[in-house]
């Protein structure tokens, strides 16, 4: 009779298989790390829930607390506010990106990835794309809450969808900024602190109030910064008529301007972030 033991078959520990002929290419690399970010988001209910509640809370405060005191012109304040709010929520979400990236630096996750024989640029691009995807989900939720509290589009549905697409493009551009902040900060708390420095930009813009209600010296600052360009583009598209949004310049003007800002952000911060990530 033979005796069967339950001992593990191998007494030595070893890599189970031969190395693959070649490491993953840039696409597989980006996809693999993007999948991780998306899984992390989906499986961390706190992230999903807190983001949503925070967004809803501020939207309600602006709509009902400040809204009564602000009269932006021909359209109700809620119609004026929601496009601007959706645009600025890109920056709110960026704080989470910066903190998440900093955490990966702090806890050695990036060290593991960077010690692998794959493109470091692709690793970071995957991360940024996934964060943009998560952001798009957040934007959709924010927009839905906007509709729930009385927002309505005045132009065509196609234009509104185009406006939403633009927001995702801004999201991608701004995410590079926050990825860079996360890499530079090195720990989650510092990353959050540094991200807060971006917040004045959201207020000194056309996002929540018309720029012409600001003091004269502030107006040029508010007029010539990316949040304003992005807000005006989205607002002109959502309201169907730039005049309704109290804007000079056509919708096309603002769309092109906002896309230029986005391209500028990517051109500056993507190379900075990748260089920082590669650097040692």
């Amino acid at each position, binding site marked *: 009779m033979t005796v069967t033991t339950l001992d593990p078959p191998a007494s*030595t520990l070893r890599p*189970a*298989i031969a190395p693959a002929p070649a490491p*993953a290419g840039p696409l597989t690399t980006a996809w693999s790390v993007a999948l991780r970010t998306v899984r992390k988001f989906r499986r961390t209910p706190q992230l999903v829930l807190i983001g949503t509640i925070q967004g809803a809370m501020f939207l309600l405060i602006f709509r009902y607390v400040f809204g009564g005191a602000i009269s932006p012109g021909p359209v109700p304040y809620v119609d004026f506010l929601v496009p601007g709010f959706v645009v600025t929520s890109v920056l709110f979400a960026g704080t989470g990106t910066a903190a998440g990236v900093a955490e990966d630096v702090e806890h050695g996750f990036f*060290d593991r990835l960077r010690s692998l024989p794959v493109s470091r640029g692709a690793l970071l691009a995957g991360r940024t794309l996934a964060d943009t995807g998560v952001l798009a989900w957040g934007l959709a939720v924010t927009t839905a809450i906007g509709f729930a509290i009385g927002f309505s589009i005045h132009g065509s549905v196609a234009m509104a969808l185009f406006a939403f697409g633009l927001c995702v493009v801004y999201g991608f551009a701004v995410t590079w900024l926050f990825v860079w902040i996360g890499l530079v900060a090195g720990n989650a708390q510092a990353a959050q602190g540094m991200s807060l420095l971006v917040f004045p930009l959201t207020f000194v813009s056309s996002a929540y109030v018309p720029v012409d209600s600001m003091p004269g010296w502030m107006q040029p600052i508010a007029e010539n910064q990316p949040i304003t360009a992005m807000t005006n583009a989205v607002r002109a598209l959502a309201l169907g008529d730039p005049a309704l949004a109290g804007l000079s310049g056509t919708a096309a003007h603002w769309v092109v301007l906002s896309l230029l800002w986005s391209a500028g952000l990517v051109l500056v911060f993507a190379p900075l972030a990748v260089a920082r990530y590669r650097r040692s």
Partner: protein
Amino acid sequence: MASPIVEAHGLTKRFGKVEALAGLDLVAHSGQVVAVLGPNGAGKTTFVRTIATLVRPDGGSLRVDGIDVARQPERVRRTIGLAGQYAAVEAAMTGRENLDMVARLFGHDRRTSRANSDAILEQLGLTEAADRLVRTYSGGMRRRLDLGASLVGAPRLLLLDEPTTGLDPRSRMDLWDAIRRLVANGTDVLLTTQYLDEADQLASQVVIIDHGRVIAEGTPSELKSRAGRDVIDVHAHRADDLGALRDALAPLGTASPRLDPATRRVTVPVVGGRRTINDAVRALDLLGVDVDDIALRRPTLDEVFLVLTGAPIEAPPDDGDVPDRHAAAVPAGAA
């Protein structure tokens, strides 16, 4: 002759004012475990990160399995596996998903990745936990999974940076066991540690570094001999006699005896070996003091370190070697 698995000459790296590597020379041959031993901030982590192509040295040369790290970092990354001080695994993924991700990055297709992950999980005793989220794992399980992730690429050289820091004794032994089995299979391992017993247990070559430089190197027993002496331990029956014992033993030692009242022990380093213990017994006989035990032994690595550096190795904090790591991870200026 085969290239050394690690060959460093005059390696330097500076972070702001901190000189993390100050001309480090090291040749490690294949087929063994090399332990890099040193206190916090000695440059251990920076050295490992340099081998892993995460830190670019300011000067000197470094080859891994004959490959120049500065010229062909990508080839080096195919040669090594790295497990850092923190378990670098994603808590919101399962153990299997973590290994699959790394296997995919190494270029394996889905099926091979899965087979590979299954085998590694089994070898590390994580099969049952394979499909649980890592956030439910204990610290020891995370470390084992992290070790597994560093094995996915079938590395020639495995780099383990303080692999057992912060682990409870049981998990430590499990990890030691895993490392031993790896070595038995022919994987070269270079590990850093602040634990002298760890170096003693695992390594056949011990490199002691301090202030970014190698200050001593050899097998554990060579290092102990190089410290140039044996040690006589005398266990007093009564604590009151310790002073008298010290005075009686002092003439025999090469350095003044150390007293440890807590264990009622007097320790004195000696050169004469067996002859000296006879002298010691005679001296104690003359003194007429009750002694529980007297022994001649080789010094511990702790005592060797004390002799070589003039300072004891401080006990690491429970949560790991934070200052050393941060010196390496934080950008210049902050470090």
